[in-house]
């Protein structure tokens, strides 16, 4: 712990003094959360939260059972920058070690199902009884309390419960999720913000507390202002497929995706200063290319208000745009729109993102060398501070090599570590 908190006598097992707890091993004063210890026992719902705290400089220990396979792409992407501790939380010995680690940790992240007897030791009151200073973050599909707290949910059910699926898909088709799972990330980003909100309170002199993160409630935030239509007007926004709704008082829909030479472009006729500038620049671009303008020739964009347009007007205006977009590529649009200060973006694939010069210029990607000499490319830290993107440390590929150092940092004696490791080897055998 960096902050005052765990004082002598707070180890209920061995009665050791807190002074045995090592402070941060190396000082990294440029890291915001330097010296804080995060114990990450989470399943996928919590991986991003731990990763974000690690990116912000905390020492995050990711606990995984000895036999767990860690090759999954999501696991690797979201658990770098953490130290790996191979330990079975479900075994009696493992539980005891972790409970003792609670007393030295600042933040605990876990994703146990509320009410599950096998993880009763992670119930908020039991964790608080071990350390009143610990910030205990529980991330669950639907939150820790309420009639459906114990309900099961994977990405699909959470996106459904949070309202996101009802708003994605064709109007006459099935509600859709995003094919790249999102619910865990929504929960994770809320959990990181929640953990640090609780930390702010503790640093200001308060104690630890329980942070209850609901993935479902986290997803509702992703719906932007959709709920206000029902709340103010009794209207229920619905899925619009490849069109955009909710922008006109006459209920007209605008096209959002336009086929181009090598994929799709996302462009919408907007109002406001940026929208007007964009619309004028696009007309100039079409004119430069010598393509027909049709009704755009005489349109006064300063007088055009997208929120008052009828569907007929929208359709008429959009026809010449479709022809223009069919004549260009995604990257031509991206560069051209940028040069003309226009709104609109191509629909990128992961391959487009991987080669985007903007990300390259900002040192977004981090190449990590593995123990076997190979290398992995990962998303770097999510922010830049004072002009620098904090580096990513500790490829999580290390097997059990770091366990002794981790346990030492958490105040375990050399004898205890030896005992732990021999037990661990027995388990592995």
């Amino acid at each position, binding site marked *: 712990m960096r902050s005052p908190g765990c004082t002598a006598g707070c180890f209920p097992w061995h009665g050791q003094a807190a002074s045995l707890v090592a402070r941060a091993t190396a000082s990294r004063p440029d890291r*915001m*959360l330097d010296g804080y210890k995060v114990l990450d026992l989470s399943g996928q719902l919590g991986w991003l939260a731990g990763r974000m705290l690690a990116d912000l400089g905390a020492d995050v220990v990711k606990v995984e059972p000895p036999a767990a396979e860690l090759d999954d792409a999501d696991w690797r*992407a*979201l658990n770098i920058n953490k130290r790996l501790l191979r330990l079975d939380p479900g075994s009696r010995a493992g539980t005891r070690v972790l409970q003792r680690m609670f007393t030295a940790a600042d933040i605990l992240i876990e994703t146990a199902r509320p009410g599950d007897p096998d993880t009763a030791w992670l119930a908020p009151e039991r964790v608080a009884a071990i350390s009143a200073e610990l910030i205990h973050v529980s991330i669950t599909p*639907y939150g820790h309390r*309420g009639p459906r707290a114990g309900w*099961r949910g*994977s990405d*699909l059910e959470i996106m*459904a*419960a949070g309202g996101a*699926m009802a708003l*994605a898909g064709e109007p006459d088709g*099935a*509600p*859709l*999720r995003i*094919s*790249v799972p999102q619910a865990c*990330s929504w929960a994770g980003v*809320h959990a990181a*913000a*929640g953990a640090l909100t609780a930390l*702010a*309170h503790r*640093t200001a002199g308060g*104690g630890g507390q329980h942070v209850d993160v609901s993935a*479902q*409630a*986290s997803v509702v*935030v992703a719906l*932007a*202002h*959709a*709920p206000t*239509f029902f*709340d*103010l*007007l009794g209207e229920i926004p619905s899925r619009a497929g*490849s069109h955009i709704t909710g922008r006109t008082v006459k209920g007209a829909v605008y096209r959002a995706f336009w*086929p181009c030479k090598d994929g799709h472009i*996302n462009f*919408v006729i907007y109002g406001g200063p940026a929208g007007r500038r964009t619309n004028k620049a696009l007309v100039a671009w079409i004119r430069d290319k010598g393509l027909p303008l049709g009704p755009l020739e005489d349109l006064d964009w300063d007088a055009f208000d997208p*929120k008052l347009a009828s569907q007929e007007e929208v359709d008429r205006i959009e026809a010449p745009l479709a022809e223009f977009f069919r004549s260009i590529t995604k990257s031509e649009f991206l560069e051209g729109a*940028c040069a003309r200060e226009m*709104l609109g*973006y*191509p629909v*990128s*694939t992961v391959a487009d*993102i*991987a080669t985007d*010069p903007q990300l390259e*210029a900002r040192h977004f990607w981090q190449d990590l060398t593995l123990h076997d000499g190979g290398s992995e490319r*990962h998303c770097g830290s*999510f*922010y*830049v*501070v*004072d002009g620098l993107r904090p580096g990513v440390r500790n490829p999580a590929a290390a097997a059990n090599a770091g366990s002794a150092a981790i346990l030492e940092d958490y105040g375990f004696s050399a004898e205890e570590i030896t005992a732990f490791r021999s037990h661990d080897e027995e388990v592995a055998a």
Partner: protein
Amino acid sequence: MTGTTQALGGIKVVELGGYAAGPHAGKVLANFGATVVHVESHKRPDGFRLEYPPFKDNIAGINRGGCFAFFNDSKYGVTLDLKKAEGLELARRLIDWADIVIENMRPGVVTRLGLGYEEMRETNPGLIMLSTCNMGQTGPRAHTPGFGTQLSSLAGFCGAIGDAEGPPMLLYGPYIDFIASLMACAAILAALDRKRHTGKGCWIDLSQYECGVQFMAGAMFGYHRDGTIAGRNANRDRVAAPHNAYQCENDRWLALSCHTDSEFAALTRVLGCPDLADDPRFSGVADRHENLRALDAAIGAKMVSRDAEATAVALQEAGVAAYPVNTVADLFADPQLNARRSWRPREHGEIGEQNYLMPGFDLSSTRGDVTRAAPLLGGDNRIVFEDLLGLDRQELDAYVTQGALH
């Protein structure tokens, strides 16, 4: 608004900018007790006030917009004309008062105004400034303007929705902005903690694009590792089958997934068709993937006459993940969200009662809250400049006469 029982009580935040990403970050901090001042001007009010419906009774008005209000609860609202020397002077005084500035203007705008980080830290050395925009403050496309609705395309989300053979699809609203706003909160709070220990402030540059790509991190890693392109694939899953939404009676839908054979057997029992589990087309997970269309049709045929809520309850009791596909209206009646008090109705001066949304987390001892409805344009000028900043009435009146607060 600075009750001592709130986690962020006493933390002072100034917001320059508008729309979603900046203001939503401030709102979350305000929900946990920070004193947040949203700065606009009469000439350039927050774009969400007038450009986006819904409006109270469908009549547009500067203080009638539900969209603006939704992202600005629990804050104070002031107006400052930053084109006027006196307005700028007052803005500087406000920033000197603050611990944190959140700005989401285009890169370079705050610096040109004389309110940039380097300039402001001379008089407020511990200042934390968070700048967030589409692309980040640097790079070849730093100055590209953009809206989150479309940025969600560049970050790969829209291309990952829909049928593999069909067009990409939109997410509702500026999806990516809220990824950035929550990441902004985390970065700000980490910076605040360091400031409390060391006195050191900092300038955080948060690219909304990069934040979005973090939500694609596994897919990006897969591409970098072996060239896998994560495309759109409707509701299909790598592992689970079935894994889809099915239409139930009364035009409701139910999402469910079976990750194991025993879950699938439980599903067939609840639906009253246990023979499906013995059908060779569906007996193992590989078989179910291979015959997914037939599987979806068989389940769909059972679902159309069933009640989505009751079926979800029955499936959960049988150990199968299932939840009704909540529409926006359903969200207000959802028993779980209501148990959390996710919606907090508050009375707004012109809109009347509006439900504000709490973040997806809450704390056990310093609970969050919606402390007040969103501010009217410039509605808190006196409270902020007199009570919080400590100007006396004559001083503030002089600023008003000079047009600084327009």
